[in-house]
């Protein structure tokens, strides 16, 4: 990247074109479908961002979770009168119910995020989930995960300190980082450490003493069997604490306040955004600083940060076009949008593939979250990506659906969202171009680089041993496995 004057000022309108619209489409959402790019180009950056983030689009609690919560209540009632054997059986029943519901939640979320109107918001939610990490493995309750995710969602229009304050007292986080074991006299530093290191400031911007003292300030929270977080005054350490050189009787609010007085806090989230949305390498502090200053001046407003970031000269710098490796989620949802397909309504044929590609829904391996970038790619995950593409080329054999899946497919058909594989008509449209234009047409449609040169050879090679439609499927499957398609 060359030095840019006033890097975070908006890109001048004169520089707005199809290329910049494409870039914005591939980064705020998952796909560069011509209809999306066309709309974005017409609206311009400002209009696009307003449409994408202007108001929160509600993702209502999935019915499966509501049903599960009802059943959990019943089971808990039953547990009171149960003997030890029955208690164990009930616990197992509850766990099975949670696992099943988690699978349904993953599918429901994919369906919601797959709607291009929701995609930018949900990708932003994913971004925050990747900063404020919790995992199913650690939380073990899909209702709490939904609640956590939804708190992120409804705080997108507020400030980051407000979001941090609220996420700190979600049952998911209280469980995940052991806040329920953090009490007066025996502090647990897990949450305090990650609050500084991974959520707000970054490594090197606090001392071990700051962590110890903050842990004391954050004592007192518990979570009960109904997944409700309570503040228990007797468990809270009311003594004096010294955090970042300030002494006082800090509690959660006090800690959040003092954290956001740190200069590092203003740089931290913008840098995370750069890594998630622009370049895995991040940008030098001196480039980030003006954005940090502006963000801090806005009172750490999230909408302000998002607007500034996606309108800026830096964001549209040609050095950052087509340079990022798609995450499995982006690859999956993007494929569906690019190919105009629907989410298969069963985890087995949808979100399980996310896991094979290395990104199980809401279940990163540890509190650091997904490492991303080149870590997404190895022979196994590439094979999984290829298999995903293949699975979208042909219909799933009906006789291999189980009873639940049959019902789910029937329901999808009733709603008209049952396009699960590429149709011959779609192929005809794609390959109906003049023979000399096919490679370019595919590249324009699917590659953010728009470079069809590398497909020319492929088109020359493949006709020799494949005929008719089979050949087109092969070309398309190859194009969607090529390096260009893994980039955004």
């Amino acid at each position, binding site marked *: 990247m060359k030095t840019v004057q006033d890097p975070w000022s908006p890109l001048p309108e004169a520089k707005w074109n199809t290329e910049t619209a494409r870039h914005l489409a591939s980064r705020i959402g998952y796909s560069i479908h011509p209809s999306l790019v066309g709309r974005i180009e017409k609206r311009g950056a400002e209009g696009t961002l307003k449409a994408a983030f202007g108001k929160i689009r509600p993702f209502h609690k999935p019915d499966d979770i509501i049903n599960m919560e009802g059943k959990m209540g019943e089971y808990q009632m039953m547990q009171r009168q149960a003997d030890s054997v029955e208690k164990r059986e009930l616990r197992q029943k509850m766990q099975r119910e949670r696992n099943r519901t988690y699978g349904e939640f993953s599918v429901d979320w994919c369906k919601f995020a797959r709607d291009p109107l929701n995609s930018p918001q949900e990708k932003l939610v994913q971004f925050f989930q990747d900063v404020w990490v919790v995992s199913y493995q650690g939380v073990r309750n899909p209702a709490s995960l939904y609640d956590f995710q939804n708190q992120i969602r409804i705080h997108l229009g507020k400030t980051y300190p407000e979001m941090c304050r609220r996420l700190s007292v979600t049952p998911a986080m209280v469980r995940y980082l052991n806040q329920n074991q953090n009490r007066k006299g025996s502090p647990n530093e897990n949450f305090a450490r990650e609050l500084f290191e991974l959520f707000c400031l970054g490594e090197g911007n606090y001392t071990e003493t700051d962590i110890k003292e903050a842990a004391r300030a954050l004592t007192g929270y518990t979570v009960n069997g109904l997944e409700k977080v309570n503040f228990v005054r007797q468990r809270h350490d009311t003594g004096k604490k010294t955090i970042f050189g300030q002494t006082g009787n800090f509690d959660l609010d006090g800690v959040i306040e003092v954290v956001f007085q740190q200069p590092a806090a203003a740089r931290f989230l913008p840098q995370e955004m750069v890594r998630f949305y622009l370049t895995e390498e991040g940008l030098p502090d001196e480039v980030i600083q003006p954005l940090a200053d502006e963000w801090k001046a806005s009172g750490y407003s999230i909408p302000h940060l998002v607007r500034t970031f996606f309108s800026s000269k830096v964001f549209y710098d040609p050095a950052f076009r087509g340079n990022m490796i798609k995450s499995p989620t982006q690859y999956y949802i993007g494929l569906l949008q690019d190919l105009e397909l629907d989410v298969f309504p069963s985890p087995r044929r949808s979100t399980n593939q996310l896991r094979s590609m290395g990104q*199980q829904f809401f279940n990163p391996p540890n509190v650091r979250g997904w490492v991303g970038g080149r870590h997404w790619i190895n022979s*196994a995950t590439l094979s999984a990506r290829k298999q995903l593409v293949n699975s979208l080329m042909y219909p799933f054999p009906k006789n291999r659906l189980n009873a639940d899946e049959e019902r789910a497919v029937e329901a999808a058909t009733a709603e008209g969202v049952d396009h699960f594989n590429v149709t011959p008509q779609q192929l005809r449209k794609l390959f109906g171009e003049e023979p000399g234009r096919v490679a370019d047409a595919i590249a324009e449609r699917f590659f953010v680089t728009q470079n069809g040169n590398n497909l020319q050879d492929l088109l020359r090679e493949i006709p020799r041993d494949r005929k008719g439609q089979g050949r087109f499927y092969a070309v398309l499957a190859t194009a969607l496995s090529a390096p260009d398609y893994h980039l955004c």
Partner: protein
Amino acid sequence: MPDPHFTYPTTRREFLRQSASGLGLIAFSSVAPAFLTHSVSAKVPKAEKDRSILVLIQLAGGNDGLNTVVPFEDDNYYRLRPKLGIQKKDLHVIDDQIGFHPGCSEMSELYKNGDLAIIQNVGYPNPNRSHFRSMEIWETGSKSNEFLTTGWLGRYFDNCCSGTPEEDPLALGIGNDMPDVFLAGDAHNVFSLGASRGGATGAPTGMVEAIRDGDYSASTNASFLQHTLMNTMVTERKVIERLRGYNAMAEYPNSNLARNLKNVAALIASGQETRVYFVSLGGFDTHANQETRHMALMRQLSPAMAAFQADLVAHGLDDQVLTMTFSEFGRRPSENVSGGTDHGTAAPLFVMGSQLKGSLYGSAPDLNLQKNKDMTYSTDFRSIYSTVIRRWFDADPKLVLDGKFKDIKFI
């Protein structure tokens, strides 16, 4: 313009020869397959050829263990299964207590020859009866209430195989999904070969060339992707060539499982340095009409396993290979009203190979149960994993399994 006579090199020697003869491969050495870059670091010990290989056969859906190895002397068995119970006269009786399912004549023979062992009543505490969850428990080797993101073999690879050159895949699965057993913390050359159409579905012709010739600037993500894709496809092509050139020395029946096992035999015989193979046979979820369906499954499993073993013996490779079956759970001892059985808990597991010490391990399930109650396992599946890790792979089970499990001395 690609040379029509060009074939992509599949060995290091071929690669160097072609490069030396001016085909210009060195020109894109930034995307050279990993075996080349690895070969430079000569300090890495070369893998021995005669190391032990594990073949896993997954019986997906929950195999009815009670009707696979039948306790014909136990009256409870016939009490719980008035319709589905198999009479002694129809079984392949192997001792005074138990007999193999009528469809398992070959397995019964293998057992008598000491090439097949039964480990009875294998399961785990607090069993889960969901297919997906229980399979996950088996594949990750977790406790019933624990969620692991790596497979038990993936952890073995992480701890024992990192840093070794991986010219060939370390693990290879035949099937459309990457099995969870291989999920690992580090990146390994783990390869999956599509099961449909006999297993030989490579990249479409021209794909390797198209990607090889792709013009991507060095040290970008695009060239990294190109490099990794090349590696994957070169492996794929190599694997498919090895499959094509194979002469089986046993007659395999005409079934998917047999075809997949034949492919595994081909790769082992080719000297491919893969440590673990994974094949799957589905359809064991016999809630209804079990008699016919289970017979068909046993008639697929038994002759396929026998042919595979005979082929290995004929190639003189049987000492190197241990084959093991597993299923997410057994089925309930009480039959249901649809002529089938519902999800249960423990079941027998089979190991096959010429290095086995004995034939029958673990205790038979206690069937003194009320209607619709489940069996209690007597051997923890992780004991078997522990045995395989220690005695077959010569590694420390502690690195792979959380907790101590008693070995079962079948090898």
